[in-house]
């Protein structure tokens, strides 16, 4: 490659679009390996899923546009990835897109130095997304990539070289993460978000190499080599990156089906059980005589026949989401989040507290958006005055867009957001910046902290007074979770095997064993102190009421003087949530 060639080299909108689409596809092949890099061996390793969904949100929009301007492509990627951002790593990734977009703003094409500078912007934005950057995370990896690529810009001749250097530096930084962050070292893993970033760049590189072949242009002159960095991903075959075709984005369940069932004493649980296997994004809400169903399915007819069993059908609506999607302008609702609006609508109709069943708050009041999964927990949140329950939590982090929509849907001008998971906080904070309303995020790290915080909601106090009091309450309670280990691990000097039941409290592994009940009792024993008065047990969707009651009786026996309250949470993956006050 010669100097002349370098000077002529440029990237246009098509190149960037393909790069992102292919990186997205490549990322999907590796996301499970990224998910497996979880510090705690709990079934909520969402980093890979979150980053993948964030990229996919960008990829979806990019498929809809024709532009060849690199500035416009970057702007669309930035906006759509932010709206679709899930989890802290997803938000950080979306901020990187935002920085790149700023660097490429107004450009049709970008030469190497321009692209390199945009990339630097990306890293700066990613850094700024986090209020207290922690070393040993995705940010360390991002920074080292930025440093490395800055040097490369002075010496390297091609975009491909630039990416290679970036990946190489990223990998080096990634290997250092366990040294910087003790929890990683103890768990024997590298930072999942950091690996996600490296994998993303590898996907970009693949796209570059492929297009070099196709375009046969001057700046793609080198031999193809296997992408660097993949050796970090163990147990995964390195698949050839495939260009994302339209078909791949077709949902498995393309028909969004909504129906109102009218009957008598309809059991929402039975309806749910019968519909569960027919699709996804299932929502069954209502009570008694009227139940609303929302499902994404490939067989709407079967859904309707099944519903007919419970009563008469009304307000039928079946949409092909692929059609809908093509009509959707950029930046609008993504099909997979289409159900969220329905959730919001239905949940405000559930009998609850606040202003009373079905009543909306006044515009002058303080609205509350909370994140939780499980119908029991949603009902409890609603009964305590939450107006919108965004579905999500350990198993699936909601996107920024879902949180934005929940905030916007409220009639109130002031809103409190309870993310209830440390990995949702950044998304919530990004959502705050995207809405016109006055919104404050309470840093609740579990649904139980969220409930404790929500108890303090007082409409006679200002938003900031409420925020301060809610933060205080959230910190004051002790919370615990019972789930299972997804892999063997030694943490906090406790050894657990894959499949063991584990008890975690405020970020520490306190109990492990083969039985749910015994482990829960052990966790409670580790958490409780003499001044504690009440233990509230929220049982998950895999636990029956009888099982939960038996455990409640055991706890009452074991801890005399302690009040044990039992509530149905309905959360997936977690057998029990514990709240100690």
């Amino acid at each position: 490659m010669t100097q002349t060639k370098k000077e002529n080299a440029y990237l246009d909108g098509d190149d960037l679009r393909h790069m992102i689409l292919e990186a997205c596809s490549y990322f999907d092949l590796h996301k499970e390996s990224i998910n497996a890099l979880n510090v705690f061996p709990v079934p909520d390793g969402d980093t890979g899923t979150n980053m993948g969904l964030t990229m996919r949100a960008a990829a979806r929009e990019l498929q809809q546009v024709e532009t060849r301007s690199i500035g416009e492509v970057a702007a669309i990627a930035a906006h759509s990835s932010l709206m679709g951002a899930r989890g802290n790593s997803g938000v950080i990734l979306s901020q990187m897109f935002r920085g790149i977009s700023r660097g490429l703003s107004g450009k049709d094409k970008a030469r190497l130095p321009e692209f390199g500078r945009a990339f630097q912007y990306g890293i700066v934005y990613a850094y700024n997304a986090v209020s207290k950057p922690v070393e040993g995370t995705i940010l360390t990896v991002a920074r080292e990539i930025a440093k490395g690529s800055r040097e490369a810009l002075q010496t390297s001749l091609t975009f491909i070289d630039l990416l290679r250097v970036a990946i190489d530096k990223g990998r080096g930084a990634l290997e250092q993460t366990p040294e910087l962050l003790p929890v990683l070292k103890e768990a024997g893993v590298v930072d999942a978000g950091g690996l996600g970033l490296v994998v993303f760049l590898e996907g970009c590189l693949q796209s570059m190499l492929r297009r070099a072949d196709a375009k046969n242009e001057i700046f793609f002159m080198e031999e193809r080599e296997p992408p660097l960095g993949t050796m970090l991903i163990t147990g995964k075959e390195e698949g050839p990156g495939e260009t994302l075709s339209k078909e791949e984005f077709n949902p498995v369940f393309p028909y969004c089906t909504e129906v109102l069932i009218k009957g008598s004493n309809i059991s929402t649980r039975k309806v749910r059980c019968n519909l569960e296997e027919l699709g996804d994004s299932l929502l069954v809400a209502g009570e008694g005589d009227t139940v609303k169903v929302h499902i994404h399915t490939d067989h709407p007819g079967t859904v309707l026949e099944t519903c007919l069993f419970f009563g008469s059908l009304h307000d039928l609506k079946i949409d092909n989401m692929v059609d809908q999607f093509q009509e959707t302008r950029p930046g609008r609702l993504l099909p997979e989040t289409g159900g969220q609006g329905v959730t919001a609508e239905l949940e405000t109709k559930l009998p609850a507290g606040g202003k009373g069943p079905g009543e909306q708050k006044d515009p002058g009041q303080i609205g509350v958006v909370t994140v939780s999964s499980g119908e029991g927990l949603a009902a409890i949140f609603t009964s305590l005055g939450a107006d919108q329950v965004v579905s999500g939590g350990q198993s699936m982090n909601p996107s920024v867009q879902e949180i934005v929509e929940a905030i916007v849907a409220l009639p109130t001008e002031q809103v409190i957001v309870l993310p209830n998971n440390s990995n949702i906080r950044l998304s919530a904070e990004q959502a705050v910046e995207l809405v016109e309303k006055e919104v404050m995020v309470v840093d609740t790290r579990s649904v139980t902290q969220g409930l404790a915080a929500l108890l303090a909601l007082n409409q006679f106090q200002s938003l900031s007074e409420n925020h301060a009091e809610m933060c205080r309450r959230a910190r004051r309670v002790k919370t615990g979770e019972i789930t299972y280990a997804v892999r063997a691990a030694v943490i906090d000097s406790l050894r657990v095997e894959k499949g063991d039941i584990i008890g975690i409290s405020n970020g520490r592994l306190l109990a492990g064993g083969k039985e749910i009940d015994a482990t829960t009792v052990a966790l409670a024993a580790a958490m409780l102190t003499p001044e504690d008065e009440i233990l509230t047990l929220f049982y998950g969707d895999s636990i029956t009421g009888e099982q939960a009651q038996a455990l409640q009786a055991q706890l009452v026996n074991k801890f005399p003087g302690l009040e044990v309250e039992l509530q149905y949470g309905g959360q997936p993956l977690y057998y029990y949530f514990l709240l100690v006050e």
Partner: protein
Amino acid sequence: MPKIKIVTDSTAFLEEEVLERYGIEVVPLYVNFADETIKDGSIDNATYFHKLMHSAEVPTTSQPSAGDFARVFERLINSGHEVVAILISSGISGTVESARAAAKMIAPARISVVDSLSTAGGLALLVLAAARAAQEGKDREEIRALLADLKGRLKVFFVPASLKFLKKGGRIGGAQALLGTLLQIKPLLYFSGGKIEVFDRVRTMKKALARLVNELPATSEGLELFLMNAESGANIQRLKELILQRLPGLPIKTYEISPVIATHVGPVAGLAFIRQTQNTVPGV
């Protein structure tokens, strides 16, 4: 200058001895069971609570009639007095309306009807302050101004053992929002603008009592405080201990609540207090 007589209703639930000392007149509300109507305060609390808790029927309560007030007002006016009537909040009872109608009939220029925006211990604090002012020879306007000032600084908090009675009684105001609560909570209620509102929600009685005490001023200077009790002896005892820890030596008087109020809140522990300032009448 005509001497001022203070009139209140039975929900202030002041002791006989206090009523006599200040010459305070009381107009009772009523509790209605299917087969009998009881004048508030005419039955002792233990007996009443037993009846309330064991009766399948939910009694209703009713305000005094305008005639009930008219008879009292007429007697006092005819004996040459002026009247300040301080009554249960118009936010939860129509008593003030009855009294106003009666005042109009008898002598509107010589009777002031004051809406306490409170009841029980809170009403009692206002009535006592007014009675002391009357004894000191303050005129009707001065007493009205005093009450307006005190009302603004009166705080009344209470923790019902359950929301069952408030729900049945229907005078629940903003506490309505608590009825759908799935999680077991101890609601801290208070009077705000004459209505019962939710002050806070905590999970246990111990926390609720601590939260009540937290609302007290940091020193006992000029502080007058009543505890309010219905069937909550242990909680009242604990509340007393907590208050004395914070404000050692503070005189604490415990009042029972009247059957009419008990009908609406059930077993309850609460406190009412006013912080006197220099331009208000010091405590006795």
